[in-house]
């Protein structure tokens, strides 16, 4: 708390004037963000920028610091140090102004008893200052947008998880925010609801909204995000797009091969254990997945030749497409290795 109060009054005035020109600079700007809870450093020097109109995916394991960072951006928590700005406004000094331009969708939120979906939205619409006809029109817009029209008279605490997320999104959009911060919006959704949510996020991005969305499902994020942010133990370990990450890691990383045998499937694991430079990943229905640590194409051919030479009845041997998850794990692996070396 004390640390964040280190900005001068002159700087505050500059920040406020910067906010009157929202298109300049970044929609989200985080510099050297720290947040500690007692002796635990939840966020440790995080810095990143998100340009206006971009969709940015925020990825990390549980407890990596995603939610804490997002809560600080949403003015729901205080940083212990560093500077956080939304459209040029410091979230500590101008929380009320920031709240007018952000929409916050938490991973979980309670629902009010005895209130229908329409009444729930009506309450929040009034609370954000919408009145009369404007309120009614805005409510109709968001209800249509998220597809809640058939459920408007249903009690809000009787909704399914997917319907609840739609209600949450509708609430976050009521005041037409410039920046949308979504914490695990797809968690617990069925595949159909996920596809719908993905579509809604893309439509919002096309409308020019800046979106910061966190998720565990990397493939989904890769499809809808312009850039990805990987956070691990409170630090940003990667910031860029998905394709670059895969390409960047592919050249140096190990490769996984899917091997199928005609019979004696268990022999594969035994064979791998006797051969250095190869790791057994997991058993499949008719064989297994192996990791070849040397990414040289000649080495891959040599492995196949060795299997045949040793009498393994190989009927299938193909390289697996590299996934974003693998790239993420490799990034984390590189971080851990460099830390150990230090």
């Amino acid at each position: 708390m004390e640390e964040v109060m280190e900005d001068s009054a002159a700087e505050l005035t500059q920040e406020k004037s910067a906010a009157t020109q929202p298109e300049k600079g970044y929609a989200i700007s985080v510099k050297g963000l720290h947040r500690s809870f007692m002796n635990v450093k939840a966020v440790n020097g995080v810095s990143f920028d998100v340009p206006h109109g971009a969709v940015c995916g925020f990825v990390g394991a549980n407890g990596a610091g995603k939610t804490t960072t997002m809560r600080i951006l949403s003015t729901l928590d205080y940083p212990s140090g560093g500077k956080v700005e939304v459209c040029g406004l410091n979230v500590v000094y101008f929380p009320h102004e920031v709240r007018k331009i952000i929409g916050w969708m938490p991973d979980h939120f309670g629902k009010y008893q005895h209130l229908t979906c329409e009444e729930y939205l009506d309450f929040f619409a009034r609370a954000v200052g919408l009145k009369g006809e404007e309120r009614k029109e805005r409510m109709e817009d968001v209800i249509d947008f998220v597809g809640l029209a058939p459920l408007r008279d249903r009690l809000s605490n009787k909704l399914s998880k997917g319907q609840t997320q739609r209600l949450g999104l509708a609430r976050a959009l009521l005041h037409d925010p410039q920046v949308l911060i979504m914490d695990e919006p797809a968690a617990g959704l069925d595949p159909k609801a996920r596809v719908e949510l993905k579509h809604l996020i893309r439509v919002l991005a096309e409308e020019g909204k800046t979106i910061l969305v966190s998720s565990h499902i990397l493939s989904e994020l890769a499809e809808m995000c312009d850039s990805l942010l990987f956070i691990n133990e409170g630090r940003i370990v990667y910031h860029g797009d998905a394709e670059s990450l895969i390409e960047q890691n592919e050249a140096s990383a190990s490769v996984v091969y899917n091997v199928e045998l005609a019979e004696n499937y268990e022999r594969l694991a035994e064979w791998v254990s006797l051969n250095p430079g190869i790791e057994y990943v997991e058993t499949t229905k008719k064989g297994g997945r192996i990791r070849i640590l040397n990414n040289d194409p000649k080495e891959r051919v040599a492995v196949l030749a060795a299997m045949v030479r040793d009498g393994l009845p190989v009927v299938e041997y193909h390289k697996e497409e590299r996934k974003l998850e693998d790239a993420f794990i490799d990034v984390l692996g590189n971080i851990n290795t460099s830390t150990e070396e230090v």
Partner: protein
Amino acid sequence: MSTSVNKHRKMENFADWVNPMLVKELRQGLRSNAFLGMFLLSQVVLCFILLIAVGNDNVMRAADTAGKVIFGLFAFLALVLQPLRGISTLSNELKDGHMELVSLTRLTAWRTVWSKWCAIMLQSLLLLTAILPFITLRYFFGGADLFMEVMMYVLVVICSGALTAGMVANSALKLPVLRVIITLGILIVGFQFFVMASGGRIFSSRLATFGITSVEFWSMVVGILVVTAFLTFVFLTVAVRSFAPLAENHSSGIRLVSLILLLAGGTALWTSFGDYIKEELGFVLYLLPLIIIAFYSLTEKSAEVAAYLAVKQRKKLRLIDWVLAPGWQFGFWAYSLALLIFFIGILGHADNFLRDDEDLVIFSFLFAAPLVPLVALLLLKKRIQFTGYAIVGIILFIITLVLAILVDEFKGRNYSFLAWVFLPIPPTALGPGDKLPHSQEELFAFCAVGVSLLYWVGIAVASIRSIKKQVLQQADV
């Protein structure tokens, strides 16, 4: 034509002029099973009572009984059941994360809590409105003192307001055990009020003796109004500060009002000249703000000072900040000032006060009791906040009680002082005047004052050091 359309639109958008939280709370509250149950049950019971009264041979007597039952029923609903509905008002919202979503809108913490309290009170009034036809019918039976009865109903509603506010504040506490203890306390007070109200012992008998044209009558009514309004304000502020942003100052108002009431109470005491109504009122107005300042101001968070200085962009302190600025560091000085005012008032009113050792002991107890949990928290390097303060306070109270019993048990024996030494509030073990020689009693009394002053000096030093550190940090900016 267009005028009527405009009027219709205005009526349709009437709710736009009302606090959104109030609209939401009323929507939820009026549909809840608790309210519907109370409403329907009260109607059934009252119909039954009135039918019995109509069928009775001695109509006057039956009407009198019916009047008492109607009032008793309303008093029970308003003083016990309705306040109980505030039990989870804020805890559920805080637990489900609603408050965070609400805080992102334009609704302030104060408007949120105020609306929640108003919603319960409006439902109490709705219950009263539903009972009104039965009260009117009872009036036509004859023998009713209309003014006094109306006054009684109004006073019950006012007391219900204070109890409901207490329950709303209680619902914001994080520790469930503490919530249960306080709920039981409020229930006991509410039930006590109900018993007194339904028995006609509260307000009516005393008020009736004065007559409505007397100064005493109106002094008492105004006194009750002031005390309940003050308590309601305090409880609602306690609820607000539990989740309001740190930068919002909810301390100055409460301290200012408390100090004004303290001065008013003192003036009433000094000018009472044997007028016992004024004297009683003076004492209540004197003691209550002191207790409030102690428990509210000494439990304010440390970081509130930094937030206050930053928000005001203040690099130097004004004199008034020492009493009104938020944070326990300034709260301690507010408490000290309140204590000084209290001390002067008591000294001026009671000629014989502080003339013997026992008075010294009582005063040092009053002086030190609220400081001891704060000393313990500071020594343990724990965060200052109401929950921690209350837990330490309860633990110290139990220790004090046990040790005091031991001291009492071993009174007169040579080693009794051992227990006394370990008492967090040493004066509590005193009072052995009849068994100790006068010189020893005097020594104990001065020891009590000495230990209490030691607590005071310790906190004063800690407070000044903390303030200095935070002011210097702000000056560096």
